[in-house]
Every structure is written in C-alpha cells, then in structure tokens.
C-alpha cells in the first residue's frame, strides 16, 4: 500500500479545497521514489499511454494547426471570459437550466449540498470530475449525510480504498491490476470471491457493483469538459458509459465547472474534440461524448443546475502569461511525458492537480503565502526539459510558467533564505568581470580535493545533494580564459 499514510480524506479545512498538500514536493517525492510498486506501475502505465498518444497524433497531418487554433481559442476565451460567462448563463437559462455562481470551493459545496437536500435524496452518482475533486465535494456531501458514489472505474478504485487521485484521466494510475483486485475483494460487498486480476473481469465487477445504483439514482453530479457559450451546451467526454448513466437516468443533474471551461461557439468544439481524445486516452475518439443544452422535455434529467466555480481562477486570469494555465483541457498528456511525474507520481504534488500543469496551476490558484508554503516547492519540481510543452494540445508554455512561478516563489520570501544569499553572491560576482575571475581562482582551490582525479564529496548542504550520487572532476589547472590569454601572449611573442 503506497498511500495509506494519507488516511481518510477529510473535509478540506481550506476554503480553496484540495489545492495544497501538507508537505513539500521533495519530502513527498522521497517516499514515492522508494516505493518499488509505485515506480513500476507508473513506469508501465505512462510508457503505454505515451506510445498510444504518439501513434494517434502521428495520424493527424494538421495536428500543429489544430494546436495553434486551440491555443488561440483559449486565449480569446480568457480575453472575453466575463462576457462569455454571462452569455452561457443566458443560454443555459433560456433552455431550462439554473445557473449558480460560487466564489470558492466551500461555496460550491454548499450550493450542491443544498440542491441535493432539496430533492430529498441521500445518495448521488458522480461522473469523474476534477472540479468536484478540487472542492472536496464528496466530503462535504458525506458531512451532510449524503453518500456520493464515484462511478468512473479508477475513481471508484480510489474511493473504495480511501485513497487520493494521482492523475487527471486515471486517478488510480498508481495501482496495478492485482492491487485493484485486492481492493475490490476487500471493499465490494457482493463481489465474486474468485475474482481474478484480469482487467476485463475487474471491469465486469465494477459494472455489477454499480448497475443497480445507476438504474435507481435520482441525482447525478458531473463536471464539464466544455461549455459552449452561444448554445448553452455542456459536454462530458468519457469512455465507460458511467457518464451517460449519470447524465441521462437521474431526475436531477448538477454540473460543477471551473469558469475557464468555456468555449465561444459550437463549431469551436471541432478543434477540442480532435485534440482532447488523442492527447488524453490516445484514442482517435473516446467511446462516448455527451452534449446537452439545458433541459430536454421527455429526455434525461428534467432539472438541471450548472455551478460556475471561481476558486482562485480570477487570481490566475490577472497574470498576462500565467493565465495560460487556465487554457488546460485536463488531458494529462503533460503528466504522461513528464520524467518527474513518471518517477514520483501524482500524490507528491499535494494538490489535486499534479504534474507539470499542476505545478503551475496550483500555486497560482492558491497564491504563494511565503517561503514555507508547500505549493512554493511545486514550480521547482521540474528540470524545465520542455516535454510538457511539446505534448500540450493547446500549447501552454509550461516551462515559461514554471520559471514565472519560481519568480513568484522567490518574491514571496519574507526573509532571505540560504539560496537567496548564494544567488545574490553569484550574481554580484557575475555582473563584474574582475570579481568573476577572482571567483574562478577560488573555485580552483577545489583541485586540492581532487588529487585522485575525481571529487567524491564536498562539505555543505547543496554539495551533499550533488555528491550523494555524482562525482565531480577537480577544477582544471587552467581556466579557459587563462588558456586564451596564454595563447594570445604566445601569438604576440611570435609576431
């Protein structure tokens, strides 16, 4: 068990919900890196999905044009966000839906709890949704005596094992088939005791477990992949049919979405319905995409509520570059290609949004409160290798945003840290040629440590981190500039 130490998820004490963990990235990563099972599971899963994504993206000869259109469509949305939201509100209302607004996670949860209580239901079925994971809705419903049943297979696995999601698309990506079988055997009351770990058998067990619940559910709760401003159309992209069940069979549907999920027009979906499935599950198209506009007499829920969530998104929008993080369509391609994510998994990021996009989104949503804020460690959880940008279907410049959030983390230093002192000293030396060559002469003293041809350790905390796994050659007898000067002298002497 990799995550039992996290214990039962509790009602988020932060009004922002689950956007901040309890320990810094390096501390959490330390544990993850030592977990052989986790490393194996993540390595296998991310390798599989990378190959699938590459194959289906390779089929599309206008992929780069689609990416550029997606990027600009989202930039356009950000530039017109308040107006588009008002348009969405009007078009959803005109089609029989009811629109609610929530300043933060707490308010969104309160709205949903009240709506469910009005129906008299004590149980709801849920489609996987990052927004309600962010707000901690299940815990809030639980506190009000309402059971929230996650119906996506991976989300069900997470819920049954009191775990936390570690990936946008596959929240249980950190679990392998035999762990999943064990969870089902332990937690599903009516499961076949001879259940094997064959994925098909596991999927059938989930079907049997949820079937009655779907057919009798009175309230469904979903997120939204896209909301079309001009037609009031909401879209949910899924695979298993659990989404269709939740969106179709209950009397009441409540959809919670971040305000940034909007697109201007129906035809704009032609871009995103190509970008998302290929980037996400590595399929040409996911098995099921549902779209609906308000309430349709005689078909599906006759009561529809749409909850529009801010929860820090306005903070992000205020940054001209940083707002790019709101372009994210939650495909998880950046997670799957990130060499850091592949080795640490999603829990190390603390926030419900892991990986490269999480590392730039979470600290912007919450703001960075000071040098000890665990979210200040997230922008540093990257080598800036740039694989995330190449994979991003809407061309979010994640490496640039990481640098920008590192600057925000430095700006939040209320007292000088050891790193501040070192960087200031280095900057002072480097801004002045004389001081720089003096510093080089100091470096050269390191030759005393490397008489064996390699240096294996040097005192100091930063040095210990380096020398834990790497040698260093001794400094050279002659720096480049000394060599150059010597050569110039020799040449002058010759002529």
């Amino acid at each position, binding site marked *: 068990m990799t995550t039992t130490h996290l214990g039962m998820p509790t009602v988020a004490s932060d009004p922002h919900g689950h956007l901040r963990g309890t320990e810094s*990235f*390096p501390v959490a*990563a*330390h544990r993850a*890196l030592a977990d052989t099972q986790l490393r194996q599971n993540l390595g296998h899963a991310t390798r599989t999905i990378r190959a699938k994504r590459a194959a289906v993206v390779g089929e599309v000869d206008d992929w780069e044009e689609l990416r550029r259109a997606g990027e600009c469509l989202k930039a356009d949305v950000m530039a017109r966000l308040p107006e588009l939201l008002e348009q969405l509100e009007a078009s959803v209302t005109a089609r029989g839906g009811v629109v609610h607004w929530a300043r933060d996670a707490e308010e969104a949860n309160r709205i949903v709890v009240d709506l469910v209580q009005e129906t008299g239901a004590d149980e709801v079925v849920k489609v996987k949704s990052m927004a309600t994971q962010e707000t901690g809705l299940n815990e809030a419903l639980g506190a009000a005596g309402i059971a929230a049943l996650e119906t996506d297979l991976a989300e069900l696995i997470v819920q049954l094992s009191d775990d936390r999601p570690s990936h946008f698309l596959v929240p249980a990506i950190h679990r392998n088939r035999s762990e999943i079988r064990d969870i089902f055997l332990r937690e599903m009351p009516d499961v076949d005791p001879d259940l094997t770990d064959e994925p098909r058998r596991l999927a059938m067990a989930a079907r049997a477990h949820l079937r009655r619940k779907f057919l009798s559910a009175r309230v469904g709760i979903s997120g939204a992949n896209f909301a079309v401003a001009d037609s009031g159309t909401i879209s949910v992209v899924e695979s298993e049919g659990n989404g269709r069940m939740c969106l179709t069979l209950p009397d009441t549907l409540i959809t919670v979405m971040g305000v940034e999920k909007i697109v201007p027009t129906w035809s704009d979906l032609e871009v995103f319905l190509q970008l998302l499935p290929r980037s996400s599950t590595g399929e040409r198209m996911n098995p099921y995409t549902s779209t609906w506009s308000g309430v349709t007499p005689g078909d599906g829920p006759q009561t529809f509520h749409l909850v529009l969530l801010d929860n820090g998104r306005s903070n992000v929008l205020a940054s001209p570059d940083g707002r790019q993080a709101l372009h994210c369509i939650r495909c998880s391609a950046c997670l799957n290609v990130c*060499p*850091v994510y592949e*080795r*640490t998994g999603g829990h190390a990021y603390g926030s419900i949004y892991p990986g490269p996009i999480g590392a730039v989104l979470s600290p912007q949503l919450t703001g960075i409160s000071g040098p000890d804020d665990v979210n200040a460690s997230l*922008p*540093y*959880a*990257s*080598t*800036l*290798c*740039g*694989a995330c*940008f*190449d994979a991003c279907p809407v061309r979010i410049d994640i490496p*640039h945003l990481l*640098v920008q*959030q*590192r*600057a925000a*983390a*430095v700006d939040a230093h209320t007292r000088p840290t050891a790193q501040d002192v070192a*960087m200031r000293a*280095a*900057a002072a*030396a*480097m*801004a*002045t*040629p004389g001081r*720089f060559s003096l*510093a*080089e002469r100091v*470096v050269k003293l390191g030759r005393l440590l490397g008489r064996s*041809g*390699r240096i294996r350790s040097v005192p100091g905390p*930063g040095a210990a*981190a*380096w020398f*834990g*796994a*790497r*040698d*260093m*050659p001794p*400094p*050279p*007898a*002659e*720096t*480049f*500039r000394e*060599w*150059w*000067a010597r050569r110039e002298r020799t040449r002058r002497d010759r002529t």
Partner: protein
Amino acid sequence: MRIALVATCLGDAMFPQAPRATVELLERLGHEVVFPADQTCCGQAHVNTGYLDMALPLVRHHVDVFTGVADVVVAPSGSCVGCVRHQHAMVARRGGDEGLARAAEDLAGRTYELSELLVDVLGVTDVGAYYPHRVTYHPTCHSLRMLRVGDKPLRLLREVRGLTLTELPDAEVCCGFGGTFAVKNAETSTAMLADKMANVLSTHAEVCTAGDTSCLMHIGGGLSRLRSGVRTVHLAEILASTEESPRVPDAIMSEAR
C-alpha cells in the same frame, strides 16, 4: 567569418576543454574566433531558479559585452543559447527595460549553438574530424526542445572518421540535471540519472557526448561514481579531434587538459 565565443561560465571555470575545442575547430575551418574577455555568465541559473531581478544585470552585461564584436556569436551549449534566445528579452521586459529587450533580441538573432552554427550558418557537416571510438549521443533538452537543433549534431557525428555511433534508447528523455533541480530535488534527479545511465551503458559506448557541458557533468558524474569506465565528452571535442592531433578520452572524467 568573425565569430565571438561565449565560453559559458561552466566551460570557462570548470570544463575549459569544450570552449577550447570550439576555438580550435572553428579556426581549423578558417574562421576568426574572438573571446570578449569581460564575459561572465548568461544568467541562466538565476533565471531558471526564479531570480529574474538578479538576472537583469547579467543580461545587461552579456548584451553589452557581445553587441557589435563579431558577425555571429557561438556557445558550445544548448541551454546557454536557449537562455539568450528565449529568456533574455523576457527578463529585460520584466525589468522594464524595453531598450535592453530589443538589443537582447537583436543579439539573440545572431547567437548560435555550435551545431546550428556549423550546419545552418557555415553550411558544413563534414568538419574533417577523426575520432576512432564508440560513441552515443544524448540530445540535451534545451538543444532539442528550446532550440530545435534536431538531428544536426548527429549529422555532424556521422561524418566523423573512425567514429561508431550507437543509438541511445529513450534518448529524448531528460537526464535529470535541470540546474538547481539536481540539488533542490536531488533524489528525483538521481532517479532520472539512473535511467539515463542504464541507457548509456546498454549501448556499450566508450563515450557519451552531448552539446551541453552541464548535462555531461551530471551524467559523467554519475558514470564516474559507478566506476563505469564510460566517459562524457562534449561534441566540440569530438569535432575538434583530427588524425594529426587526436583527442583521446583517457581520463576518468574526460580530463583532456
């Protein structure tokens, strides 16, 4: 052509063999190399650690030192050129210095990583090099994804006499260096390094080469700690090696000095 050399701070102070080889190679090809002696550092470490204000004077100094000294500027480093090309103007604008930003953009337009300079500007892939060793090439992240050098280094290596090029599995995956990442997230960095080293060792190459001294310091430091016997050598050193004056990767950490 008159070419100004950015030796890079790491190349100057710790790994002078890379900038030296760059000088020897370019002079062998008939070009004039100048070394503006007031140069210090492009500021990449400050920028990428989030000290953008502190980086501003470094950017200003770099632009002052290199403006107007030569036709083009070269650095044997993908990440330093990446910083010049993609970050200097951003740092200047953030600091409110539009004039510096423009000057930085102008300079960036004339600044090249070594393989770009050779293939795109000087139009050469066969530089007359001789290096009779089994070599694998690691494409560093910034040369690959910031500069998009593509297969230029490989085209140069394929023309080197005597050299056996072996393909590195998962070549495009980061080695785990990441500047201060190697210290701030040392354990994750080491996990990435372990995989990179395993891939290097699987090629049975004697030498792992790349276009960035910093990544080579990281990979080479790990290979040395394992006593693997595999050396890391900058691309410039291989290209500078000739039959008349071969460079032999004989020291444990490629100490050709």
